[in-house]
């Protein structure tokens, strides 16, 4: 996720509809300016969760930028609510949680509420565009369970890219090589579990 964006690539956000929820009018305005600069024409800027819920229900959205700490942490509740809106076409859209102060507890709370990514404010245009591009490439499954609804929180580790040996000395290849020795017999496996006296 931390990889820099390809500056020679193109992005077309003209038809993208974005919900922004932040109680700070200046932050809301900065976000609007940045998104307009990216070419977004439809920015729904909301200062209250009530307004944001109305937009979420009535409009077709592609992205939401939420400050979860905006008033009494109720942004977390908004994200949870959005992920549980079974009848809404916006339920699975990318949600970026943008926080002014990101403690470990806040980051965990945003993840467990159902945010796709957490970013720290102040958000530079480059960083925001990088995160939007990352969200556009997301292929994570969506999970709905009694305790959680949102993108799968378990990222699998595929190891270094196929055909490369990785950059770290402890990198393991994703491809499983052929066995170097025959499998152990059941007897040998049982032997491993047998308690024995240790001669000291």
């Amino acid at each position: 996720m931390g990889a820099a964006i390809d500056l020679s690539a193109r992005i077309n956000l003209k038809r993208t509809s974005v919900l922004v929820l932040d109680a700070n009018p200046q932050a809301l305005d900065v976000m609007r300016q940045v998104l307009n600069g990216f070419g977004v024409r439809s920015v729904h800027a909301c200062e209250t969760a009530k307004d944001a819920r109305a937009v979420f229900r009535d409009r077709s959205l592609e992205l939401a930028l939420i400050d979860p700490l905006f008033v009494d942490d109720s942004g977390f509740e908004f994200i949870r609510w959005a992920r549980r809106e079974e009848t809404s076409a916006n339920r699975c859209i990318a949600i970026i949680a943008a926080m002014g102060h990101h403690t470990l507890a806040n980051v965990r709370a945003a993840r467990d509420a159902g945010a796709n990514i957490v970013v720290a404010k102040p958000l530079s245009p480059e960083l925001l565009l990088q995160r939007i591009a990352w969200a556009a490439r997301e292929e994570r499954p969506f999970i709905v369970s009694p305790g959680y609804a949102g993108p799968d929180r378990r990222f699998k580790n595929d190891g270094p890219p196929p055909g490369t040996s990785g950059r770290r000395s402890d990198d393991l290849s994703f491809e499983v090589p052929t066995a170097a020795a025959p499998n152990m017999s059941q007897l040998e496996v049982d032997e491993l579990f047998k308690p024995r006296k240790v001669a000291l």
Partner: protein
Amino acid sequence: MSSVRKFIPENKLAKTLEDRNGLLMTQAIQRAASNIEAVRDEHLAALDGKLDQLCLVAAAATESHSANDAAQVYRLAREVLADAGIFGLKHMNRVAHSLCELMAAGDRHRHQWTGITVHVEAIQALRRMGRMAAGPGVDAMIAGLEKISRMPV
């Protein structure tokens, strides 16, 4: 038995990438940066108002020790952090971050009220110094504040 559903949703953002009619990433970033510059003066004036408000609320909070007032200080500190950061006021941003750390570490019974006062006074000092706020003295002051906010409550 709990029921868990797992599915791959349509990524509505995916089609925005690699569109030949789209903006180059560099263009998009430049346009966004110039849009921010266009509102700089207006936003810095608003930030000034927030610093006044922070002063008043922090004074009230250290007097009342109330959870509501403390929550207001935390909210304003977060706003100052974000607003100062976006316009490159890095010292103000660092002090506001330190104040946020201090507010998040405390709770209604255990806030370090003296530490809060010191942070707010430092923010006022930076404000008075304006563009002159630089150099080892300022760095040492901020390092001291960060030490306070990292102290166990």
